């Protein structure tokens, strides 16, 4: 078990800044995808919020350490991992719900399209045979 002094010292390393840098890079990649319209801003909001929270945890290690300590985590790294895993699980679950809705909608649209097409085919007069040259 670490002493309180050792515990707080863990939050002073360069690792925090590396972690913050990684969050920033991911956020930039996400922004680029949004600008190029590969992903929607609306769909990315929760992901961006997650990156802001993790980035803030890295930039303000003292506050993070205080919270982690208050929650009973023995090391700051554990707190980071737990927060990241929990947030990623929530994001994944949210994506799963969205994907499932899209899948159902896509099936319904495909069926609707087929039924409409069949209706149109039956309404249209028989096509004349192609002229022979």
């Amino acid at each position: 078990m670490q002493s309180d002094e050792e515990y707080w010292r863990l939050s002073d390393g360069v690792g925090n800044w590396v972690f913050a840098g990684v969050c920033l890079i991911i956020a930039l990649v996400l922004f680029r995808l949004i600008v190029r319209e590969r992903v929607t801003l609306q769909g990315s909001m929760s992901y961006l919020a997650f990156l802001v929270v993790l980035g803030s945890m890295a930039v303000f290690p003292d506050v993070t350490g205080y919270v982690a300590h208050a929650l009973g985590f023995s090391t700051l790294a554990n707190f980071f991992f737990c927060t990241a895993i929990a947030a990623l699980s929530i994001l994944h679950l949210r994506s799963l719900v969205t994907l499932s809705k899209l899948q159902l909608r896509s099936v319904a649209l495909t069926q609707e399209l087929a039924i409409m097409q069949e209706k149109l085919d039956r309404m249209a007069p028989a096509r004349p045979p192609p002229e022979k040259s």
Partner: protein
Amino acid sequence: MRLLLVIPAFNEQASLGGLLTEIKALPPIAGVTIDAVVVDDGSSDRTQEVARANGARVLRLCRNLGIGGAVQAGIQLAHREGFDAAVQMDGDGQHPPSELHRLLEVKGQDLVVGTRYRDGAGFQSTVLRRLGSAWLRGILRIVGVKVSDPTSGFRLYGPRALRLFADSYPYDFPEPESLAMTRAAGLTVSEVSVAMRERQGGRSSISGYTSMYYMFKVTLAVVLAYLRTNRRARDVEVPDAIG
């Protein structure tokens, strides 16, 4: 009675022509007008052309939805156009049109399943598949459905079943799950002996490792379908059954 034959087909050009010819050659059944629709589930072969050439209506799905999505498209068509009933038949020729009258003889049921196991007539499937069927029979019995051939795709849907399944139908490996849904919605299920044949062409979608996934997924799906539909059915108002 207006009856729609729903024939889901995925790359079935080899067997579809023969099946549609047999349907056209069926002797007239008193009081029954038969229409056939082939649901082309995004085939890459000439399934669509073969169906049209044989005078069937064709629903062309622009992408492969799987058997459940294809059957549901046919059921939606039947429901919207006010058909009194629909009969699902496989496009691979396993279900002889000459056995159709057996399904029609059963009156007053919402779903009639053609079973190959009760009388043991015709093609009986492999030992492995029969074991799988026995397992599903047991699972379905728990939710209150007693049928001897839960995977049979030769079945008749009455108006109440058409309404239920036009709204919601399982997408992959749908037969056992749809039985649980039917029961949970308070509809009636019955079965009748029919003779089936070996598939006349094409390939089965269930083989090797897929069968393991099939058993696991279907078992889970049957329980979920029962719970889900049971809850939804309380709000559904349904017309009378056929017959």
